[in-house]
């Protein structure tokens, strides 16, 4: 009858808990957390990006002992946080252009090195448009040169700040302002887009990870882990956008969870180009459960619906499940090399 203790009812799924040791509580449960983005910001109700950025930066600030600089690309995160003269940032923060955040971060890191301030760490950050599309050359350069920057992409799967246009991270079949489901089209095309995390892995940089705002502890741990490395590091965080996705403002985290549990968004970690761990699916759901909660997929369910499109999306999820070993009975993923992953890759994770 011996039962392993300590056991607590929510384990480590909730961010804290009165019965957990301090060390087992998330940074976000700490009343003294940095709150890198303070209140009063103008993000929409239920914004996943505002939450994700606070979680990332609070964890990075803790890891860097408060000595951290952030370089930000143009996008919602920049616009909602800094309408002059107000700023929500509680750390040194710089914004230059839409396309150049990785290069600005590189420059800051170089300047600090020149001044001998290697104790100060640098984070670059931006939305999926700024990262996966227009800033991509700068990002690849930053990786390739081995600059000492942690770059974080907050992926809300579209150009949200300018009115929900398609990006290279928009999933197939999603409605955006530039992928309207008209005529025979059912939203964004299949077979296009790219997986920035896999491409980052191809640069053989020290650390690459994906995460979502549905698991704040996992996200924090990945940031902390990334901060333990030097050189270029990349974290890609799925951050649902109630406005652009047409989801209920209260369901931001729920939807991120469904993205992961359906297999559409694989959550993993890679060191030097090899996947070292994946977050397994706990309660598998069909893609439909994820899609139905979002108006950007409403056309798949209108009238007779589009079972053919749903089937294609389910196939993408199934392929992720198989490729990344997302189910419990899958083999340990420790030996998945990048090339094995790319060999079967038609396109990146949805």
């Amino acid at each position, binding site marked *: *009858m*011996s*039962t392993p*203790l300590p*056991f*607590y*009812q*929510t*384990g480590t*799924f*909730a*961010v*804290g*808990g*009165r*019965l957990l040791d301090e060390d087992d*509580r*998330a940074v*976000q*449960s700490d*009343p003294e957390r940095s*709150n890198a*983005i*303070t*209140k*009063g*910001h*103008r*993000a929409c*109700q*239920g*914004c*996943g990006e*505002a*939450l994700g950025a*606070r979680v990332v930066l609070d964890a990075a600030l803790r890891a860097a002992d408060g*000595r951290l*600089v952030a370089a930000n690309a143009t996008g919602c995160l920049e616009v909602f*946080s800094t309408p*002059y*003269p*107000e*700023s*929500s940032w*509680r*750390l*040194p923060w710089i914004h230059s252009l839409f396309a150049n955040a990785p290069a600005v971060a590189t420059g800051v890191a170089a300047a600090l090195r020149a001044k001998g301030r290697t104790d100060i760490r640098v984070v670059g950050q931006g939305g999926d448009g700024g990262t996966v599309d227009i800033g991509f050359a700068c990002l690849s350069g930053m990786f390739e040169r081995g600059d000492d920057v942690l770059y974080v992409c907050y992926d809300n799967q579209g150009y949200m700040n300018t009115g929900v246009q398609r990006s290279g991270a928009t999933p197939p079949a999603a409605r955006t302002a530039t992928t309207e489901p008209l005529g025979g089209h059912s939203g964004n095309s299949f077979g296009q887009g790219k997986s920035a995390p896999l491409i980052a892995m191809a640069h053989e940089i020290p650390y690459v990870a994906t995460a979502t705002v549905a698991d*704040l502890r996992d996200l924090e741990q990945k940031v902390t882990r990334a901060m333990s490395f030097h050189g270029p590091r990349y974290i890609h965080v799925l951050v649902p956008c*109630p406005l652009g996705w047409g989801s*209920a*403002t*209260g*369901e*931001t*985290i*729920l939807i991120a*969870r469904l993205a992961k549990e359906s297999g559409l968004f694989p959550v993993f970690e890679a060191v030097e180009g090899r996947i070292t761990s994946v977050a397994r699916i*706990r*309660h598998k759901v069909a893609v439909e459960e994820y899609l139905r909660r979002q108006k950007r997929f409403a056309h798949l369910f209108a009238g007779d619906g589009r079972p053919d499109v749903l089937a294609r999306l389910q196939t993408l999820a199934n392929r992720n499940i198989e490729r990344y070993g997302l189910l419990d009975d899958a083999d340990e993923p420790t030996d998945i090399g990048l090339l094995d992953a790319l060999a079967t890759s038609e396109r990146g994770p949805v």
Partner: protein
Amino acid sequence: MSDTRPFAITLDVGSSLANRTGDWRTERPQYVRRLPPCNHGCPAGEDIQAWLYEAESGGGGYERAWRKLVADNPLPAVMGRVCFHPCETACNRAQLDEAVGINSVERFLGDEAISAGWELPEPHAVTGKRVLVVGSGPSGLSVAYQLALRGHHVTIREQAPKPGGMMRYGIPAYRLPRDVLDAEIERILALGVQLECGERVGDLRAAMREGAYDATFLAVGAHVAKHTEIPGGTASHVLDAIAMLHGLEEGEPPQIGRTVVVYGGGDTALDAARSAKRLGASAPLIIYRRTREQMPAHATELAEAEQEGITFRWLSTIAGVDGGELKIERMELDENGFPQPTGEYERLSADTVVLALGQDADLELLGGLDGIEIVDHTVAVDEQMMTGYPGVFAGGDMVPAERMVAVAIGHGRRAARCIDGWLRDVPARPEPQAELAAFEEINPWYYSDAPRTVRPLLEEIRRQSTFEEVVKGLDEASALYEARRCLSCGNCFSCDNCFGVCPDNAVLKPGGAGAPYAFDLDYCKGCGICVTECPCGAIEMIPEET
């Protein structure tokens, strides 16, 4: 560089704190306490979730838990053994994996209290009011305890030589060891409750007058065994289960033979058969008119009886006794599920027949009182637990309700509030009931998988001949684990999740006991994420007044 300014800032900036985003809101979150289904299901009225919450801390939390528990039920070690735990049937966790083992944690706490010698709280200042309680079963003990705490003087009159009612003279020792029962009764008496055993109240009106009581609580139970006409000779020995169990307790083991048949389908039938087995009967047989599924006996008791070698014959009646033989008639269910005779008979040898056909209340003592309404051998009471005779209250088996210890305790608890109100001339108001914390309010994602622990059983060989306790308690580690399986339905358990998930940092953590979090309505935009992600359903959204 000025030392108040954060490092590396070059321009003076304003803070977004100037922008009160609370204006955007159309709905606001608020913390609520919903009624956990276990509490809703507990007839004794326990605040189960609240005492499990304390027990989850382990160590000093056990005593805090016990104190919360005994505020409503002074007999946790007894109830942790004999209760049929409707709380567990209602428990939300059953929809996740298995119900929380509430009853086994209750027993653990009750046993801890006995071994550590924890005492009940000090009674309030003496009021000078005198209350007579007739009967010292769970209902009488419960009311006496609650009234004593409120400072009233309580006298219990009990006709039997020892207190406890059916907990002593019905429930056999292998399910409820008497040292446990004695310890919990002692603790109540230590509050100053006066117990007079061997004192039957035959004329209530006279007893009330003589003692100059301000109020009376009747808890005489239901002790008169129902009989059925069984035609035929008397060569087989026929006795009733209540008398048999009572005799056993008084040290007068009933005369039974080797082949014992018990007639009836309730828990009393099982207790009689299991006791007969321990007294030397070879394989007691229970005969019941209906099917196994229709037996009122509880499933766990049934399973334990089967393990001990009790045998059953369902859909059968005893049509007659003839010499050492019984005439058994086979029954059939009609389309309404009622058993009907078939005219098919068979014979069975038996030297003893034990009747366990239910009991009626003995209401003789009410003789001279007007206004008391008797319904089907029970006494009707109003919502204040008062009979038709002013100042005379009643509860437990003698009023129309389910017959179980927890109900009796709950009646005592409720009646004590009402009697207290009556004595002070301020009628007790009904206790407020919060909205139910249904499973839909729970966010099951957050609870880690944790199968239920099972209480160990006494080896079967020792269950053949001794009255030693059959079901053992949980060890400390298992009890703690079991307590921590609680989902804390509808009541905040300080998991910090709302504090962590708000995109607007609008959840504050002032750190006060009881109210660990607060909303910063200057900035909360009313997105509702905290509501969706609260694991236990302790936050709700309400429309903003405009």
